[in-house]
């Protein structure tokens, strides 16, 4: 008889009065009051004494960014600051520019990192295409370019949108009231005016006139709820999302006055079915509300980015395309990546001047070390800039990303 090894399950909580040792622990969620090991790291460097002549690149400081502890992929950033003095030898005001550069040496290893599969949305001015991916992928970007594994494109307008409404699929039927179909009228009079908007008139009863329709939703998702009231209304309007056709069961209510207007709300819905209810908020007979464009759209989180098309479009117009982050672009070993350039215009006082230059660079997520340097130059002709003291702060921070 063959030996069959059954999976071992524990139903319920496992309480261990000691330690658990394992090569790997896989879990969807890990909660801890204290992590041992440097999940967040910060390292300090200091430099001083350099002199920078006119229009020359001077290396102020060379240093290594340490490999993140535990070899975890971490978000890495560098902050560089220096205090400088400049003696101009004149009582006159002199204006010019100081440059500060943070640079990282290109490593020999493959440097690109998977971001995800992006969908083309539109073309933008200046030879860029706009594309998106569902979810939050901001931490997979950093200084440098994006592209396929062997193409490199500049990118801009990287941003996250928490509630992007999928407007192609409106859950509300007959949302612009071309007729009175799909809505159930309760008390009052419900009509389609000219086939372009809905009108709900209060009658002589004590119940406030309202209409409703049931829509199917997915519990736990967030939906965008749109509504419009026109100014010919003589009553205020209330727009409810309810678990039943009864307004008393509403879990969300939006209000628009009789002066009219439109509003959008993002509402998290914890039910598989909801009722959209539009209520005339007046008990006076003859008072009416004119309503239109009542929409309920599922939303999703999206990360947007504009990618340069110069040299060729990397994200296909109709086929979603996987793209990668290239911290070093078309790099070859021996070159330096300028991860940040700070340009500061300075106007001096008489003779001796003091100033501070400060900048920060985000390198993206990585689990390797980096060779780095800080360089500076200035364009005060004939003068020398002296660095009295400077600091470098390196930070590594867990972001939840561990993609290889």
């Amino acid at each position, binding site marked *: 008889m063959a030996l069959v090894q059954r999976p071992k399950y524990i139903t319920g909580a496992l309480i261990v009065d000691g330690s658990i040792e394992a090569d790997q622990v896989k879990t969807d969620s890990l909660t801890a009051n204290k992590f041992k090991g440097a999940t967040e790291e910060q390292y300090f460097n200091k430099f001083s004494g350099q002199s920078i002549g006119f*229009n020359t690149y001077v290396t102020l400081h060379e240093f290594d960014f340490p490999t993140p502890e535990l070899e975890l992929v971490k978000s890495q950033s560098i902050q560089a600051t220096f205090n400088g003095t400049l003696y101009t030898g004149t009582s006159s005001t002199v204006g010019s520019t100081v440059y500060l550069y943070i640079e990282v040496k290109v490593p020999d290893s493959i440097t690109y990192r998977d971001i995800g599969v992006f969908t083309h949305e539109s073309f933008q001015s200046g030879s860029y295409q706009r594309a998106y991916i569902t979810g939050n992928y901001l931490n997979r970007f950093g200084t440098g370019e994006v592209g396929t594994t062997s193409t490199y494109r500049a990118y801009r307008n990287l941003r996250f949108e928490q509630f992007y409404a999928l407007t192609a699929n409106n859950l509300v039927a007959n949302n612009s009231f071309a007729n009175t179909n799909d809505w159930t009228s309760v008390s009052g009079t419900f009509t389609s005016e000219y086939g372009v908007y809905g009108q709900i008139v209060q009658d002589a009863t004590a119940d406030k006139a309202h209409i409703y329709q049931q829509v199917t939703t997915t519990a736990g998702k967030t939906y965008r709820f749109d509504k419009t009231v026109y100014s010919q209304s003589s009553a205020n309007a209330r727009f409810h999302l309810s678990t039943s056709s009864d307004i008393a069961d509403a879990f969300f209510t939006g209000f628009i006055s009789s002066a009219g207007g439109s509003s959008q709300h993002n509402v998290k819905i914890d039910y598989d079915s909801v009722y959209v209810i539009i209520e005339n908020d007046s008990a006076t007979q003859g008072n009416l509300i004119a309503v239109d464009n009542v929409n309920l759209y599922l939303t999703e989180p999206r990360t947007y980015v504009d990618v340069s098309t*110069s040299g060729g479009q990397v994200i296909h117009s109709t086929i979603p395309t996987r793209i990668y982050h290239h911290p*070093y*672009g*078309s790099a070859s070993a021996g*070159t330096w990546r*300028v991860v940040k350039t700070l340009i500061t215009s300075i106007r001096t006082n008489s003779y001796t001047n003091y100033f501070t230059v400060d900048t920060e660079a985000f390198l993206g997520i990585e689990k390797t070390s980096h060779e780095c340097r800080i360089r500076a130059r200035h364009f005060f002709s004939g003068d020398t800039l002296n660095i009295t003291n400077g600091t470098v702060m390196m930070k590594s921070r867990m972001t939840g990303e561990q993609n290889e």
Partner: protein
Amino acid sequence: MIVVGYERRLENEPYFEYVEDSRHSEKEDAESAMLALRTAQADNEDVLLFFYGVATSDTEYEINLIMDVDTPLPPSAPEV
């Protein structure tokens, strides 16, 4: 599209300019062009650094990598 070029010192403001040398769709071609450029400009004392850039239009680019003028040429490079 990879841009190969260099930064040149100027006598007057703004005291420097970036000079685009060539554009390439292949990384290997860009590296060959960089080697040729460095060889050609080896005696030019006004060169501050060499750079690779990423094109953002037919005429514009972003500099993303720099190479110091004193970076040694690889062994396979021609004698200068």
